[in-house]
């Protein structure tokens, strides 16, 4: 199954500086009569003095507005505040907004409330952990635990990198040429050389240099070269020799065992180091011949320093002049926020898969590269563009099921298994309850829930994320499964219990449950129906009253509005 979640950059169009885009003429005043009220354009605002993300926002808005006009596309109106808040909180930090955050945002009347919100999320405490999880999954995938791969240490290292605001080129370089030990030496009281958690990526794939090469190319450059491993690429101009020259740069890595680690029987302590000659491989390994005759070369054919090819390759990959590195990241982020990258899939850039709107892609890539490859700047900008703030869906129902032209309607995406499970735990307050008492129980419950969505086989490859799009098994798990059942139970110390016990006013409880789950207050008709659901004869036992609220929470958690990012 091709990786469906992340879009890929495909085109080999060299990065073109699009300074000219900033000097584009103002939009023509005579646009086709829109069926919806037009929104004041940011292109008319004065150019800000600073070089902040606002510049990027204006440019994106302008280019897209031009493109829409040229093609006669009328984009959706803006999404309402509650929808935007829920959406951007999920996309920037991976969680739902709390009722307090929702009430505050809805009540805020300042003109720059979205800017403040985004800046707060990006500089807040949840940003680094979320993106560390995102990139751990993207880089280490769902690989069977390989020798010495410490996912958590890798993730923590990434989190620290994001928290420190390191540029993506620094992070990528460190991952690509990581060496050292994966764990601290338990015997060494004051280690002269601290462990390097970044080696996890190399360790995950080092068994086959072809795999490291394929991953390096796919994850950092957005180029799918692994087809060329066995034969000349069917549709692109990669040859088998190109692949093996690229792969050989990663082949001079030796992994040696260094005894047990501090944890004992768990991840074994190993040392990763570069060596001058190819390490010995199994005699019948079919890769032997190809590697022996290859010369380390970058994807553009340039020879790499034979004394330290891995570092040379890493430098070539993250270089500002590398035509793919910045675009790969930009395309991936555009796909993350807008649902579909400039190129699809986002890790498949090639001439036969050209990007939509290449001038916009190039603008973003150039800005990214010229501002220290700062991910925070890029995502801050994307979150504040007009296109990201559009309403989802097609209320007039004309184009149901058809692909959306130029992102003119916001995409509707089901929450993935991890996201959904975490959202369930959070919205119901179960996470806090379980974390308090038994963190292992939380983990066990999470894993059980995830099993309803995914399947991993025992083959010699890592597998991409299971293709989850809303299966029947998943639906049944939501309707009758343990996780939702526990999450909606009015057990003592659960969030629902506290809510029902402390709040006499049914209306307040209904509002709180809607805010926690759907991120908005109930509509009038929903309020009325909710009250009917929870209404009990006067004098009923508290447990009877409780069941009505359990039912309400159950319905909210199983609703499409909850389970989708829209």
């Amino acid at each position: 199954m091709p990786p469906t979640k992340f879009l890929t950059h495909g085109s080999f169009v060299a990065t073109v500086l699009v300074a000219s885009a900033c000097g584009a003429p103002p939009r023509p005043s005579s646009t086709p009569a829109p069926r919806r009220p037009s929104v004041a354009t940011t292109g008319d605002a004065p150019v800000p003095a600073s070089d902040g993300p606002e510049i990027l926002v204006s440019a994106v808005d302008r280019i897209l507005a031009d493109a829409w006009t040229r093609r006669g596309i009328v984009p959706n109106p803006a999404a309402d505040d509650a929808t935007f808040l829920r959406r951007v909180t999920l996309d920037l930090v991976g969680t739902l907004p709390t009722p307090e955050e929702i009430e505050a945002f809805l009540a805020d009347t300042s003109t720059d409330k979205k800017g403040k919100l985004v800046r707060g999320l990006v500089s807040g405490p949840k940003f680094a952990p979320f993106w560390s999880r995102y990139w751990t999954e993207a880089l280490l995938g769902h690989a069977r635990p390989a020798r010495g791969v410490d996912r958590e240490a890798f993730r923590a290292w990434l989190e620290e990198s994001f928290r420190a605001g390191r540029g993506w080129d620094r992070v990528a370089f460190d991952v690509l040429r990581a060496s050292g030990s994966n764990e601290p030496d338990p015997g060494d009281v004051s280690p002269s050389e601290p462990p390097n958690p970044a080696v996890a990526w190399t360790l995950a794939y080092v068994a086959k240099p072809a795999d490291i090469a394929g991953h390096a190319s796919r994850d950092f450059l957005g180029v799918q070269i692994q087809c060329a491993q066995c034969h000349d690429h069917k549709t692109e101009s990669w040859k088998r020799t190109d692949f093996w020259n690229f792969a050989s740069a990663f082949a001079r890595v030796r992994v040696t065992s260094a005894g047990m680690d501090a944890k004992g029987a768990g991840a074994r302590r190993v040392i990763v180091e570069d060596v001058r000659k190819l390490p010995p491989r199994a005699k019948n390994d079919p890769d032997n011949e190809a590697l022996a005759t290859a010369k380390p070369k970058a994807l553009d054919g340039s020879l790499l320093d034979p004394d330290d090819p891995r570092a040379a390759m890493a430098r070539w990959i993250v270089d500002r002049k590398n035509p793919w590195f910045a675009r790969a990241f930009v395309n991936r982020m555009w796909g993350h926020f807008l649902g579909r990258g400039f190129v699809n899939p986002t890790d498949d850039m090639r001439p036969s898969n050209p990007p939509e709107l290449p001038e916009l892609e190039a603008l973003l890539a150039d800005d990214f590269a010229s501002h220290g490859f700062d991910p925070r700047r890029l995502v801050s900008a994307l979150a504040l563009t007009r296109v990201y703030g559009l309403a989802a869906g097609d209320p007039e129902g004309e184009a149901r099921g058809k692909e959306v032209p130029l992102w003119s309607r916001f995409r509707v995406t089901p929450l993935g298994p991890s996201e959904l499970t975490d959202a369930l735990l959070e919205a119901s307050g179960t996470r806090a309850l379980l974390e308090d008492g038994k963190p292992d129980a939380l983990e066990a419950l999470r894993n059980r829930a995830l099993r309803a969505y995914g399947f991993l086989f025992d083959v010699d490859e890592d597998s991409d994320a299971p293709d989850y799009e809303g299966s029947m098994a998943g639906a049944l798990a939501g309707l009758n499964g343990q996780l939702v059942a526990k999450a909606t139970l009015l057990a003592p110390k659960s969030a629902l219990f506290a809510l029902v016990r402390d709040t006499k006013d049914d209306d307040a409880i209904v509002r709180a449950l809607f805010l926690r789950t759907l991120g908005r207050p109930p509509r009038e008709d929903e309020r009325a129906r909710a009250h009917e659901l929870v209404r009990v004869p006067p004098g009923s036992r508290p447990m009877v009253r409780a069941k009505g609220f359990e039912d309400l929470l159950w319905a909210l958690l199983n609703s499409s509005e909850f389970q989708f990012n829209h």
Partner: protein
Amino acid sequence: MTTGTSSRSEGTSRRGFLGGLTALLAASSLASPRSAFAAAAARPKSCIVLWMNGGPSHLDTWDPKTSAKIAGPFRSIATRTPGLRISEHLPRIASVSNHLAVVRGMTSREGNHARASYLLHTGYAPNPTIVHPALGGWMAKLGRGDDAVPSELPAFVSLGGPSASAGFLGVEYGPFVVRKAGALPENLALAPGVDAARAGRRTAFLDSLEEGFASRIASAKIDGRRSVLRKARALMDTADVAAFDVSTVPEAERKAYGGTAFGDGCLVARRLVEKGVRTVEVVLDGWDTHDDGFTRVANLSKTLDPAFSALVQDLAARGLLAHTLVVCMGEFGRTPVINARSGRDHHPGAWSAVLAGGGIRGGVVHGATDDRGDKVVSDAVTVPDLFATVVHALGIAPDRTLMTPIGRPIAVTDEGTPVKALLV
């Protein structure tokens, strides 16, 4: 039919009525052979995919060789098909080879598990611009025409593996995945403390939420999910779901299939097909034998042998074989060269697939590899051609196309041509 019965019981009684009638007609000397045949032919065909995950070594199963360097330790045995010898570890299959078409000339270019699995499930090489539907997705979408065997069971079921999605067709045509073959699917029963009345109240509220949301944000994805929710609820209510559960099947019958999880899965597949499920995939994992290949393949063969043969015999005995196409295949074959760890590595250039039933010619060997099993030397069959053969036999035109959301027509097969020699 009495009014007021649920659609399920109406369907059951109608099915029983029709079945009884057919039997009566068949028994009666007044019945014309044509009307009995027509009644039988009206039944839509089903497909059972026995998915050998990992890429089974063709040399150690369906295409044994004698050359010392590559043959491995297994001997070969004769079958009921003249000239066809297979692994000594598949004796029961050998005894039913009169039903089987062994395709030895399979060839493809995908040697990577993920890519090859995609190819063998969808008939297309992975393509960045589209997610192709699995065979079961096409069957679910296109094959609904005839309602002779109605059921609330999902049209596409996968036992013991994820199969592949229905891609651009939408989630409602995707597989219903049951992790543990032979057991009832999980989460069918209402949660503890929820009785039918309470379930009714909460479900009605959920439905009102769904209606409101769908009307505000019209989206095919949301429609798809609602459709899945409806099917999930229908599945909860149907007695046919007992077909998944082998615990009530007589011990002897289970033992005939081998008593393994895969064997149970094949038994369940037969029961599902009887109820009208259109596509069932049953997964046997573990064929990726880079290490210790011969021990592992021998063990896997001991699982495959009774299950596959019992399934074919059972379908034949129940008069279902003509309507049920069984396909046994994996992602690719394995190298003639035995590696340093007594295993074989991936080999997509030449491998074997086996077909049975559903309009496939039995007792046939089609295609051949060289004396090392390295290359196909006659009657090569590509994966698109295999798919074309299968869908044609199942009653779907191989060039039938549907539109994707971006308005691109995608055909059921990637320009495949049915292999006439395999068809009855």
